[in-house]
């Protein structure tokens, strides 16, 4: 606990910087008594253990993966086209952009996470990811409506290569999805060994979102991606649960 308290000011600084997306994290520990040697074996920092809680107006159900489990009807689910929902895997600590946990994705799975829509107006969506290839374009991020199988355009990466901190930022303005079932669909490119780490996802009404510079233009999704999204969307809608679940099916 002593160390955690010592690092708290640094942690707050990191959180503030996380919001603008420029600070590598976790921050390097500073010990005033001796200069740090070149190439420490690890750096140590402090995060809000509940993740980006300060972003309470984030419309993503669990934008930082801190309150999502690995199965059941969670804010995020991992979807295998041939099996349906499968176990959601994670990475932790400084491997993540913020908080304690972040999602990991491997072929052939897709990640689907719910968000809410305002009654009117477009929605600013951002997502950070680290594709194993370090080519930001190897990840597809699409705003979709699970109710009608309608897909919005794909959100493109803001750069071809990751930023200095290793993260790619995907951003765009999705159309309003009021009265529908909005979700973010994340899938990997065709490379069969490709994996990715995903963290810090936000959806905010346009106008309330922090300025991130000019967004790249949205592009229509291709037919193959649309087909994969349709499969996931139909499966998720068809497996919505209405009950107490397995835990209450016998004596407690």
């Amino acid at each position, binding site marked *: 606990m002593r160390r955690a308290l010592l690092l708290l000011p640094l*942690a707050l600084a990191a959180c503030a910087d996380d919001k603008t997306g420029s600070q590598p994290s976790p921050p390097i520990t500073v010990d005033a008594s001796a200069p740090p040697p070149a190439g*420490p074996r690890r750096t140590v920092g402090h995060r809000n*253990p509940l993740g980006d809680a300060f972003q*309470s107006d984030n419309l993503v159900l669990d934008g930082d993966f801190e309150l*999502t489990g690995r199965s059941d009807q969670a804010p995020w689910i991992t979807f295998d086209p041939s099996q349906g929902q499968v176990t959601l895997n994670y990475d932790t600590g400084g491997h993540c952009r913020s908080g304690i946990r972040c999602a990991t994705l491997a072929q052939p799975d897709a990640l689907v996470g719910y968000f809410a829509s305002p009654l009117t107006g477009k929605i600013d969506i951002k997502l950070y990811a680290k594709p194993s290839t370090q080519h930001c374009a190897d990840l597809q991020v699409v705003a979709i409506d699970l109710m009608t199988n309608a897909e919005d355009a794909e959100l493109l990466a803001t750069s071809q290569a990751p930023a200095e901190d290793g993260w790619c930022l995907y951003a765009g303005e999705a159309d309003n*999805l009021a009265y529908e079932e909005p979700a973010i669909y994340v899938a990997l490119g065709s490379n069969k060994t490709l994996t990715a780490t995903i963290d810090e996802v936000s959806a905010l009404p346009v106008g309330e979102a922090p300025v991130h510079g000019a967004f790249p233009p949205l592009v229509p999704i291709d037919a193959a991606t649309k087909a994969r999204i349709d499969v996931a969307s139909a499966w998720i809608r068809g497996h919505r649960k209405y009950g107490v679940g397995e835990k209450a099916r016998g004596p407690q």
Partner: protein
Amino acid sequence: MQRRSWLATIILASASATAHAGTFDPNGDFSFDPAAVVTFGFEEAPPQSATGVKLVHAGDAVDGASYWNVNVDQNSVDVSIALPSTDASYVARVFARTNRLLAEIDVSYPKDGGSPATQAHFYPSGTVTSDGWYELVTNPFSVQGSRKPTAVFSVYANGADVDALEVVPSGAYRAAVACSPPVDPACGPHAFCESGWCRDGNPLVPPLPPPSQRGDVIGYFRARWQNYFGGRFSRVTYLPNATATLDGLYDAPDAWTFWNGVTTSIHRLHDWHTTVNAPFSFGGRGLLPVCFVEGDADLSHGAAPKDPNYYDVLVSHVGPAGTDLKPGDRLVAVNGMHPIAFVESLDALDWGMWRADDPDTHAEAVERMSSVIRRWATNITVMHCDSSNDTCAAPQTIAVADLPVDDGSYTYPYCDHRPLYHLGANGPNPVTHNSYNGPFYGVVDESQPGENIYGMVWNDAYLDNSGNAYQPAYDELTANADAVVLDHRLGNGGDVPGATYLTSPWRAEATIAANTPFDLTIGTFDSWTSNLGQQLYQDYLPNDPYPVGSASPHTNVPVALLLARDGSASDWFPLGMQGSGPNVRLFGRHTAGAFSSYFVFDYYDNWTWRIASGDLLMPDGSTHLGTGVPTDEEIVPLQSDLMHGRDTAYLRALDWIRTCTTCRQ
């Protein structure tokens, strides 16, 4: 998660006096806290019996040259630790990586009449490393070392690394004291009274968010309730109380007050799906292997009048031993209150609180009665009745502390709101009431030659890719039955296809409602109009209808549906049966009105909570959440029936089957 203790690794501290306390140096090298009384570096190989746990030698261990990778399926892994023989308070820390580590320290004492076992749970502190490790900590927990307790570090994970456990003295020792539940000032700050002992709540929950973050954390939960919860009815009726509870936590003085307050807020959403799975549990005191039901104490209202708001609470069935209560006996009061009112008053204490959306539905409270009494009641008032002369003795108040000791050897039956079964050898076990293993089906015991009355007992409404569990039963019923009693007096729900299928043989085809998606539009239900409801009904109907019945239903077969504690898809199913034709009739209690789906959130130590989301739209634009499905005959067990082994609702259903005049057309 079951526990399996397989390793007696006892580690005492031997850290260097020059080391920095439990932290990392500028190079990122870790040192245990020199004040630690227990350190464990996970350098030893786990024994072969520890399936799923392996020693990993790697240069990126937090401490030393290795760590454990824990990938266990069902059982937790326990490591024995030796704590000093002095009474003291400690904190514990450990590092984990890649997926969650669910960890706790369990302290148990000899059976010497002193305070009971205690536990401390690990949650993330926020400290992380660039190579993926994160620190988990406990809040301070007190150990009465002078009683020579047994302590274990218990971990469970599906693919997580664990390293560098330390236990360090911290805080002032706090002796456990006996208390009188449900609330006893003797417990003091951040403690609550459960099962006769003050329990320090802080070691059970995460650290208190610091003041600089607390408003953000409250705002985060508040936004989850505001943006995704409900249900039109539940948002209008219950949400304001829940958010007000959250808003009262800004000045919470300690971790327990804060996190228990968040849980209380969830309870005040007052919704059937919106429940909490606590990361901790304490055994009840006193032996009470008894299941209760809502009933009509027709033989004892002279001595104890009926409450104007609630049904009476009667004994439905009991375990084979361990109680002198028997079917038909009456639970008049708990702590001087109506038993249902008592259970429902505990929303700030009982993390298992479970409420229906319909404010007039209380079967959930009655189902949990025995468990709640054993933990939070001081006394119960009962009436013993005599079947030989149909009389009941005067009310008798019994201290819960005076109930026989429960040594763990007694059978507690499952409380499924069914006083009796009627399927003979084809039915559930009449002692354990294992109706959760259904469906059970066959000719009912009371069927006379030529009647061919069949019955079915089951607890859910769920179809998935693994198959249709109901089809064998329904195939037999539709092939051979001339009348059917569907006993769904405990209905845990499932999914809409399940509800649809269960209606299919008995009624004509129709689409009777449309499911909304999850509540994912800000303000949908807060500015509701009938016109909007009708428009959305039309919008949702193509993609998410509620179809019922079939093209060739057996409408010449009378079907009696028994209900008592039913929610969600087990609301949908009776809704699909209700009013469908003269061959279908509903008996018993109305349902929970839980016409929604849910999201489940998940934190450390299996601490999960669900938030209901969505509603059911009717063709006129109205919403159905909050209004249970009424039965055609609202009927509860009579005391005079229970004591004689008669099943009131079932017998009335049987009578209808035998006397109905338009039910076979």
